[in-house]
């Protein structure tokens, strides 16, 4: 479900990093990034399948179509792009909100935007 990068690409970059010689300050920085990548992959393995299944269920209802996640997500993008679906349609926004909430829980669970989205309007 999660692309840019996919889990496979992250794992590939991680193994390349682990094979490289250690040493300078740049390597120390990259080591912290690599630790983040490992934690992201663990969260994705734990949370990704359920997040995708729920997204597919929401998309079927929203679009009135059957299909896998890639097909349905592509169709949602197309309808938003050409205006068949409005960006502020409550059902669209509800899906986007649920999807990004699941996504940030994998990519960056400490990101403050999650707390901001959960807080009541000021």
């Amino acid at each position, binding site marked *: 479900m999660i692309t840019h990068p996919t889990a496979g*690409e992250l794992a590939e*970059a991680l193994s390349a990093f682990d094979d490289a010689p250690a040493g300078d300050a740049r390597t120390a920085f990259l080591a912290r990034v690599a630790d983040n*990548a490992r934690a992201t992959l663990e969260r994705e393995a734990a949370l990704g399948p359920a997040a995708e299944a729920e997204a597919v269920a929401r998309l079927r209802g929203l679009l009135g179509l059957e299909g896998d996640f890639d097909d349905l997500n592509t169709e949602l993008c197309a309808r*938003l792009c050409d205006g068949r679906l409005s960006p502020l349609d409550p059902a669209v926004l509800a899906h986007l*909100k649920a999807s990004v909430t699941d996504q940030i829980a994998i*990519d*960056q669970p400490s990101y403050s935007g*999650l707390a*901001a*989205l959960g807080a009541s309007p000021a």
Partner: protein
Amino acid sequence: MDVPAALSALAPRLSPGATTATEARRLSGGASLETWAFDLDDGTPLILRRRPPSARTGDNALPLATEAALLAAVAASGAPVPRVIHLCAPGDGLGEAYVMGRLEGETLGKRIVRDEAFAGVRPGLARRCGQVLAAIHATPLDGLPPLATSDAASELARYEAVYRDLGARRPVFEAAFRWLERRAPPLERPVLVHGDFRNGNLMISPASGPHGGLVGVLDWELAHLGDPAEDLGWICVNSWRFGQWRQPVGGFGGYQDLLDGHAAAGGAPVTLERLLFWQALGSLKWGVMCLMMYASFASGADRSIERAMIGRRASEAEIDLVLLMERS
């Protein structure tokens, strides 16, 4: 090229009492521009900005001579910036480069929004940012070097084209492009816009004083002519609040302080609605930039783990955009 040796040879022309340069060291920086800190033997602290001969000039990067001319122009209109000391000529042996004064302060947003040392300057900082932006935006345009002009609609179109080229399917970005397109405000009177006014490019001093904590605005390579609200919105993007999301201006202040400071210093009135449009466009631009940086990993141009992981920051822009759409 031996940068320290070239700086030493240049030293007598940078300060009358100097004979050589010492302590030249390269600071962390981008791939396209080098920043060197060095001292003269008379004690003058300086910075060299330099484009290495190998660097490709990006579509948006200004020539360094233009950057130096902008620093001089905005200084004359009252904005705090490093003083340009010397624009390098071919005979200096440094390539495309200039030398400027080195300011004392902090640019790391995490420290500025959290450290106790900055608790004294934080309350006035948003208002001060508004004042400084008003000074930048008031810079007379005649006499400036050639700069591109962009408005909300052209910025949106530019980033949508980049997004389409990447082939990503991110429904939040699709929704945001259409949402913002309908609300894009017309450009009434183009002003000089910094283009990257945010934590990281602002030199903050923990000592309060007439400068109000903001002692220098750095990194002018994205300067252009455009909507003053672009700069006011960009510093409010949540990605540079460093966790302090309840303080929309850079993690240290409120919208009204920023707008009041801007207006009190003579800036053309900017509504909160217009600021929020540019804040949302800022989040969208940041999200597309994250995907662009990831694309250099995917294409094989830079296979580092850092380039791969930054793609996963696109979702922070998405969550910020959903919040802005929901509350609009």
